[in-house]
């Protein structure tokens, strides 16, 4: 459990959930909210993982 809370990937995924939830509440009517939430959440996680991978190519830690 401690490992789950200190591993950065679950923390990143949870932060993406909060941001996507917030933006969906702010910008969409009830109808399209769920779809918008999913799109934003997937985009945030995918972009963060892609940037982390690019940084690892530039000499960062590969784990």
């Amino acid at each position, binding site marked *: 459990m401690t490992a789950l809370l200190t591993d950065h990937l679950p923390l990143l995924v949870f932060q993406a959930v*909060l941001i996507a939830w917030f933006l969906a509440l702010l910008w969409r009517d009830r109808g399209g909210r769920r779809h918008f939430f999913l799109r934003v959440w997937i985009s945030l996680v995918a972009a963060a993982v892609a940037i982390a991978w690019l940084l690892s190519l530039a000499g960062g830690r590969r784990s």
Partner: protein
Amino acid sequence: MTCDRPAPGARIFLLAALAALLLPGLGHFVAGERRRGAGFFCVVALAFAAGIALGGGLPWPRADQPLALVGTVTTASNGLLFAGAFALGLGSGNPGSATFEFGNGYLLTAGTMNLLLVVDLLSRAARRVR
């Protein structure tokens, strides 16, 4: 000469923007969007609480770090959440913790979210003045 006093609808949104600075989501609650306001409170409070729990530090202005002022204003925009955490002695920050930077990120995210709520309410007030 024209009088630029805000229309009645605009006044509600200006008041709501001030309320949002007091407590996240309170602005939308005051503006009549109660469910949305409750949702905003949940998401911002959750981000703020997670930031504190992860060992993040409440930023404070420092002469040697001018950008800390931006962080302070952003995080302090959470109003009572910031004041409550400060009064309880939470958020002193633990730089040795593996999640310190993530905690700071969560705290800044919570502050940015609430500033966006204030901007949303102010833009709606401006639309009613025009």
